[in-house]
């Protein structure tokens, strides 16, 4: 086995999201993560079209046309939900109040630049939506993607060749082959899936990768958001401030 499938990856990401986190799951594959958030933990989903406390898809016949997510699919509201207008919703993101945002990607550079809105193809109709706001819109911006494109080239690159969505905004990349943290020294592998090896990842990406797997010498970077503490006990010096980890 060379890696894991998309649902397994979604479950892996879900496992890393602590109770109390406020999370925006981007359109596409990241929405799968919602299916794997544990029922016994309270994790609050944000949708940028104006809601916190978003619940799952409604039952048939219970679709409310006034209640949709950013992908324009019908959703539901959970107890504790709140509605707000678009300026407030994007202020929440831009102001660094979301804990985690998970996005898809065309390319991610080793400095954390993200390209996920435009292939630059001359006949494409450009459409950015909330992608650029999301890219800077959380304390941690995670990417969920296959490591390779369909034609076998790496989506992790030294420099993005596609138009950027955001500069230096990604903190972690979850792929079907491994998990990468963006560090000041480039990408660090913190987990590998299946029989993937570090050398193989280096060959596929052409990048210098450091080894930060728990079994390796360097420990996993400590999380700055601790589920035990709960949001109610956040430390004063900035756990809710700023966009950069």
């Amino acid at each position, binding site marked *: 086995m060379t890696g894991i499938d998309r649902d397994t990856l979604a479950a892996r990401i879900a496992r890393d999201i602590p109770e109390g986190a406020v999370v925006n799951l981007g359109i596409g594959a990241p929405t799968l993560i919602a299916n794997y958030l544990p029922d016994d933990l309270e994790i609050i989903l944000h*949708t*940028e*079209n*104006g*809601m916190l406390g978003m619940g799952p898809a409604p039952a*048939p*016949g*219970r*679709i*409310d*046309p*006034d*209640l*949709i*997510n950013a992908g*324009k*699919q*019908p959703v539901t*509201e959970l107890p504790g939900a709140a*509605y*707000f*207008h*678009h*300026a407030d*919703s*994007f*202020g929440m*993101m*831009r102001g660094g109040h979301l804990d985690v945002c998970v996005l898809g990607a065309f390319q991610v550079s080793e400095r954390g*630049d993200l390209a996920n809105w*435009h292939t630059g193809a001359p*006949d*494409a*109709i*450009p*459409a*950015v*939506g*909330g*992608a*650029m*706001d999301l890219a*800077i*819109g959380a304390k941690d911006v995670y990417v969920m993607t296959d490591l390779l494109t369909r034609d076998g080239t790496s989506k992790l690159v030294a420099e993005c060749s596609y*138009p*950027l*969505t*955001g*500069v230096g905004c990604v903190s972690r990349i979850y792929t079907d082959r491994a998990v990468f943290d963006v560090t000041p020294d480039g990408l660090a592998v913190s987990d590998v899936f299946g029989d993937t090896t570090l050398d193989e990842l280096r060959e596929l990406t052409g990048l210098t990768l450091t080894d930060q797997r728990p079994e390796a010498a360097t420990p996993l970077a400590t999380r700055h958001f601790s589920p035990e503490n709960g949001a109610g006990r956040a430390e004063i010096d900035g756990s809710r401030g700023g*966009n950069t980890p």
Partner: protein
Amino acid sequence: MISKTSAGLADAVSDIRDGSTVMIGGFGRAGQPVELIDALIAQGATDLTVINNNAGNGDTGIAALIGAGRVRKVICSFPRQTDSYIFDAKYRAGEIELELVPQGNLAERIRAAGAGIGGFYTPTGVGTLVAEGKETRTIDGREYLLELPLRADVALISAFKADRWGNLVYRKTARNFGPLMAAAAATTIVQVDEVVELGDLDPETVVTPGIFVDRVVPLGERPWLAAGEFVGAEKVA
């Protein structure tokens, strides 16, 4: 006595002029004031600049307005959708202009217009194609783009209930751009399910105060509601 209730849809949109900039509320179909747009199509104003998050869905509402050839330019964040074929065709034929604005900057630019802010520095879009030609500035160690207000001659929006002073409440995620656009247009026209008695809206829960609203058109309850309560629908409208 103040009464902002219009005689009807046609009356409410009767004085929209050719060449106007028209903000249209809604995110996709949620909150899109389709009946007001239909009235605008019937009214005939053309050469319009439309500001909305999208560029129309299917062949109704904004898509129909574009399809009727009334729209010179669209300012939006996400024109390309699975059902935006009317815009797509016009765009590829070079028959419509597009100004693409990231969604949060779009919302904030509309908010700035309503709130009398002359411009603002946003981190969204820095280092990307949308920054081209825009002033950048480093403040407190972070880089920002200067964005300017987006105003309109007219806003067409959809809300849930109004009173005769024009106070508005919305329903769920259909709120989206409505409160922002109401404040950013010289004339704001609102379609609602119902105009209730003055005093029936709780002052604590009014989302758009009537100061931002000029005309209200009640259209009656939508089929998926009964006495204001959701009773279910088969699909997203």
